[in-house]
């Protein structure tokens, strides 16, 4: 009995931490891993920069009125200069301003598309993976069919069938995008289902709903986060592609893809009308890709603990 007291007292004295301190420790470790990885820092900074610029667009851009309907043919096709960092386009609008506002559209596109498709895909994946049997077959075979359709082509088809607007374009992409997340989560769910902590929850008497959301979903989160981050790049690219082909935003709104499309005809002489929007897209997608890679490195280790 003396030993038992000794143990309890030693245990009590070692841990006077409270919930807050444990949380602080967890965040501290995560940040340590994150900042050790130069990739994630770089990507994170790039993304943060773009987001800030997009949010504060009316305040940081020199000519916010150029983003909408504006014409100034006298100033058309100005080369990049101190007053117009990226030059002007064929109507005389400041390209830098339009690029920043273009970021707004791209990011909004990504948020809406992923905001619809990710929850949808995750829920379907969890259901299919957990319940198995006929439910699984129905969901996964449907997923297979959708996966067989290339997203860009599908989006093109939908947009071409109806009058093209940016909203239709987003819905078109979302209608296919959920399948990737569904498949991802389905795979993880199936493997987690056999883990003993899920069996333990059965033994306790948890309802299926509780098990799915409290036991299985948290284990999928890191994969979902990483994939979503990497998806942003793809979605923006597809959106830009649609706009490039004239099926996305309509003028006078400035979308990066549309800008590239209009500017392409003036290559190579008026190069700035194409090059800067292209670099803008490149910068954003690269940022998200690096961030996604970094997040994956950081989150993968989390389950093992340091």
């Amino acid at each position: 009995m003396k030993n038992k007291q000794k143990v309890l007292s030693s245990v009590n004295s070692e841990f006077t931490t409270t919930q807050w301190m444990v949380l602080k420790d967890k965040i501290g470790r995560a940040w340590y891993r994150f900042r050790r990885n130069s990739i994630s820092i770089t990507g994170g900074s790039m993304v943060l920069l773009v987001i800030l610029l997009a949010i504060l667009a009316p305040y940081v851009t020199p000519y916010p009125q150029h983003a909408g309907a504006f014409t100034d043919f006298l100033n058309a096709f100005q080369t990049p200069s101190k007053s117009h960092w990226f030059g002007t386009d064929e109507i005389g609008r400041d390209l830098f301003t339009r690029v920043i506002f273009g970021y707004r559209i791209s990011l909004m596109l990504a948020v809406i598309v992923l905001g619809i498709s990710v929850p949808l895909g995750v829920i379907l994946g969890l259901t299919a993976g957990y319940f198995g049997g006929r439910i699984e077959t129905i969901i996964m075979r449907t997923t297979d069919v959708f996966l067989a359709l290339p997203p860009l082509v599908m989006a093109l088809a939908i947009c071409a069938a109806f009058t093209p607007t940016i909203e239709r374009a987003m819905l078109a992409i979302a209608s296919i995008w959920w399948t990737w997340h569904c498949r991802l989560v389905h795979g993880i769910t199936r493997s987690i289902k056999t883990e003993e902590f899920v069996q333990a929850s059965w033994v306790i008497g948890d309802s299926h709903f509780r098990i799915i959301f409290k036991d299985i979903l948290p284990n999928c989160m890191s994969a979902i986060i990483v994939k979503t981050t990497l998806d942003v790049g793809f979605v923006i690219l597809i959106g830009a592609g649609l706009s490039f082909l004239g099926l996305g935003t309509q003028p006078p709104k400035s979308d990066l893809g549309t800008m590239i499309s209009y500017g392409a005809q003036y290559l190579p002489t008026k190069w700035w009308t194409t090059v800067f929007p292209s670099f803008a897209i490149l910068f954003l997608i690269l940022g998200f890709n690096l961030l996604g890679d970094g997040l994956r490195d950081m989150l993968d280790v989390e389950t093992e603990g340091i």
Partner: protein
Amino acid sequence: MGNKYILEIRDLHVHFRVYEGISRVIDGISLYIAKGERVGLAGETGCGKTVTMKTVMGMLKIPPAIIPCGEVYLNGRDILKMSPKELLQIKGTEISVIFQDPMNALNPVFTVGEQFYDVIRFAQQRFSNGGNLFRERIRNKMIAALKEVILPDPERIANSYPLELSGGMRQRVLIAMALVNNPKLLIADEPGTALDVTIQAQILNLMTKLVEVKGISILIITHNLGVIKETTERVYIMYGGKVMETAPTNVLFRNPKHPYSQGLLSSVPRLTGGEIAEGIPGTVPDYITAPSGCRFHPRCNYAMPICAQKEPPLTMLESDHYVACYLYAKQGGQNE
């Protein structure tokens, strides 16, 4: 010294750089294995035996690991000072490892024969006197090795995939692969723990017979004291990255001197029944803020003030029986 010992670890220190600071996992251990000797390294999880094994095998990733001092002599040559190229020469040929889990140690997408072929051929390439052994000769060598581990129908085994074999058979294959290049030192990491008791008994029997016949030294690393008792001649008890006691196996098991060894042995359930001791109070030490002095003192029922101040030296009790404990130190400590 000289060539009496096949393995000689002298005052080895291994530290790791982690989030919280420096983790001093191994803080000065010494270990000797003579030619043809069967030595056990016993300890529980976190005592540092796996790190020791990796160091001897040259498998440590040097950052984040740091080796501030110490020497590891394999047959007279210091492994820690070898270049990667030299290390590659001795791995698999002079020193061989049988890993813990036969399920995972074999690659499931290649047949046993193909993996065996790699093992033999890799060794041959390093010694130019081998030259180009034809496939035929390699195959013969492999079949002979499989026969030695008493596998029925070696031809069929060689053509099988690991998943087609039972756990016991896979373990025998691993032993055969480890012995085929005639190593001088064999390291067995938790042999048989993944196997059933009846199969484990067969495997341990086989292993001890083979190393005796071939005159190979063997280092058995495990936390299972029963395995130590049945397969080794001499044992080192490790705790907190240090050697607590070392003696011939029978001597130590009959009469453990160090409080940790005593606690450990009394915690083992006996086949003849009876109560088991209450275990050892407390938990494994944190290697970043390791206990001062003797690393076991916070958990020791016999701790004295000096135990927290200075590390106890290894005191010799009888020939070949050493204890690191102030209860037995003749100088520099107080004896009750």
